[in-house]
């Protein structure tokens, strides 16, 4: 006998990411999931944003790495609450790991949660963490063909942040090509060009994050 099921796998079975969603909704916390290749500047961008956030006290950060708490230590110096997840054998943060971290944190004053996923453009794209929006980073040193090679992450991200733009004069990176490919993958994607070193582009990104956050949390 044949049974028609027509059920999507991740939506049906992922209890942990649903639990994260309801925890965030209850506390009106806006959550961003930062995804990129290793070395494209996720931690540096988060640090640069923290330096400029007015309501920094309302920001909490969760760092995901296979090993070490080097990134959490960097973030801690900026005076915000931070948790490190070591994913060990996993190349991405699992929803259950994030849920565990959030349950250990004091989120009473938190308005914005930044999750820095493990550096990887493939697997994190496959695993929703209950976030409100994904932020994919692409540094200009990585090459402009990335949206074509890793379409899923670009298709599912609300924001695309092109990082290290101060290096544009020294590398062969066609910003227009990336913008075009990213828009084909996701016509609604919002694209920002930033340099955490010079600070260029950061205010616009910060304003957008703040607008998205206050739309949810007031």
């Amino acid at each position, binding site marked *: *006998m044949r*049974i028609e*099921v027509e*059920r999507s*796998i991740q939506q049906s*079975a992922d209890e942990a990411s649903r639990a994260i969603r309801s925890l965030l909704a209850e506390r009106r916390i806006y959550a961003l999931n930062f995804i990129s290749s290793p070395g494209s500047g996720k931690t540096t961008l988060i640090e640069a944003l923290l330096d400029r956030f007015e309501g920094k006290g309302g920001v909490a950060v969760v760092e995901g790495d296979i090993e070490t708490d080097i990134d959490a230590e960097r973030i801690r110096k900026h005076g915000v609450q931070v948790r490190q997840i070591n994913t060990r054998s996993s190349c991405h943060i699992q929803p259950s790991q994030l849920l565990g971290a959030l349950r250990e944190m004091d989120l009473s004053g938190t308005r914005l949660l930044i999750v820095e996923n493990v550096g990887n453009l493939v697997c994190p*794209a496959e695993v929703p963490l209950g976030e409100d929006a994904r932020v994919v980073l692409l540094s200009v040193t990585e090459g402009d063909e990335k949206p*074509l090679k890793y379409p899923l992450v670009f298709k*599912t991200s609300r924001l695309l942040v092109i990082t290290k733009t101060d290096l544009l004069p020294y590398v062969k990176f066609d910003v227009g090509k990336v913008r075009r490919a990213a828009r084909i*993958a996701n016509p609604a994607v919002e694209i920002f060009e930033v340099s955490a070193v010079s600070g260029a582009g950061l205010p616009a990104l910060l304003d957008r994050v703040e607008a998205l956050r206050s739309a949810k949390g007031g």
Partner: protein
Amino acid sequence: MANEILGVVLSEAERHAARRVASVILRVGVLRAVEPEHLCFLFSHLAHGTLADGARLEIQEEPVRVECVDCGKTEARSFAWECPRCKGSGITVQGGDSLEIVSLEIDI
């Protein structure tokens, strides 16, 4: 992923009072990082000793749907940023990211 599939398969099988699950049809988009051979291996390993023991996993590939302003609709096996037919740049790309259980074949 294999575990999630098995969970849904078993609950559907139980709901229909199945004696065993003969096969499972999945729809997997070409953009997903799913290796069919690995998935089948893991599924059959996890299904051992359950109603789905020995069930065959059939994977239907879901292509990317390309809509081109110049030449209409077409399909592609990978992400495209120009029309695979006429090489035009005025395209939109949809689909290719499904991960669904389509149906089960069960014995009652």
